[in-house]
């Protein structure tokens, strides 16, 4: 099992969600996050006082998936989140040790 963590633009979030549902993903967790990568920040001015905003708002999507479906899930995110501009985000893939469905006590891929 793998955990796929994708950081995407707010404007692409809904498209990514739909793409994931289309390839059969049955659950995900999302968080509003702030961060920076290669994309530059922007400037805000309050009454003549200028601030550099270095952390930009993004959406973090976490999807747990079986090894078998990993490629499909990752490709769905990649293709739906891409605009071709700097700041499209990142996908991280990590090993997932265990998964438990709390209601039934199922373990492993059955619980995904």
């Amino acid at each position, binding site marked *: 099992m793998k955990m796929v963590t994708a950081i995407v633009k707010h404007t692409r979030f809904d498209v990514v969600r739909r793409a994931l549902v289309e390839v059969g993903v049955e659950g995900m967790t999302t968080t509003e996050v702030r961060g920076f990568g290669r994309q530059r920040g922007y400037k*805000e*001015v*309050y*009454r*003549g*006082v*200028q*601030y*550099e*905003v270095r952390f930009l708002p993004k959406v973090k999507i976490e999807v747990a998936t079986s090894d078998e479906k990993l490629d499909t899930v990752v490709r769905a995110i990649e293709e739906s989140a891409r605009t071709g501009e700097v700041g499209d985000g990142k996908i991280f893939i990590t090993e997932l040790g265990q998964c438990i469905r709390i209601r039934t006590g199922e373990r492993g891929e059955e619980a995904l």
Partner: protein
Amino acid sequence: MISKGDTAWMLMSTALVMLMTPGLAFFYGGMVRRKNVLGTLMHSFAAIAIVSIQWMLFGYSLAFGPDVKGIIGNLDWVALRNVGLLPNPAYAPTVPHLAFMIYQAMFAVITPALISGAFAERMKFSAYVVFVLLWSTLVYDPVAHWIWGAGGWLKGLGVLDFAGGLVVHATSGFSALAAALFIGRRKDLSREPMPPHNLPMTVIGAGLLWFGWFGFNAGSALSSGQLSTLAFVTTHAAAVAATATWIVIEWLHRGKPTVFGAVTGSIAGLATITPAAGFVGPDAALAIGVLAGGICYAALNLKPKLGYDDSLDAFGVHGVGGATGTLCLGLFAALAVNPAGANGLFLGNAQQFYIQLGAVALVAAYSFIVSLVILKIVDVIVGLRISPDYEDNGLDISLHGEEGYYL
């Protein structure tokens, strides 16, 4: 002879001016960081209670009571003795004396609250309470007496101040400058951005201030009729001219017209027209509004270069605006508009301009110096500034034991 129309307007105006202080609380509250929102609201809200009590016990007597050598009122009206339901012809001959007293109370309330923008996010609440009491007694009450009290010495010299450009905005603005310099910059100001946490709250506050300002300026006619109508219109004219000017200048200068700039412009216009509201025509008021927008915009943009931390621009808006308006009165005033006023420089009476200029210099210097002395006293007896730990955690939790947004 009591006029029901005048009394109704004065009581209505009193309520309008009262609403300005909670309005100011929102105006300032939106500008601070979220951890300081309640502490900032508290500055304004507590001032309503502290100053109203001071005013009824002895402040009103000091400011408006029977004159002692032009400097201060005596104590004949302590605890509102001799202040009753019959009119006092020296101030407002057609409304009950008590109505005039409570109307003036609301001015006394909002003035020290304006100063709180200078030391936002870092002053002890205990120190604030003592500061407000001393400041109202030693700065507001005497200056109000000099300019508005029967027998006041600046009034005798011909100084004009319709609704408080000197008494309210210059006193609070120059005291704010003293406070910002004395208490020092907020911790980490040079290292951390400190943008406003809730600008929509600031816009609500500006709206309430603008609404209440009609009571502040048009109510200062102390009657309902021609003069109150004039002041009502000049107030709005200056506010809209300053708002539009700010939007245009900021758009050209910074590339984007900000909402924060627009509402700041409106308050700058309102503060600036305050002394002149009943002495100039609507055309002059539009011009004064344009000047207010331009001059206060420059003042605020200069602040980061000068390096002092007048956190919410109490000096840049009220000190600069109040002084500008008091001088504009010396330029634009016209006897044709208000026979009880004067002609200004543009109508050939340079004398009035010099009188206004002298009054600005005197009130600014007096407010600045006495505020420094008061701040020093408060610092010695209770300590002015919260600890760095408290400053990190914010006023709300550290001083008041609650949070503005519990999530």
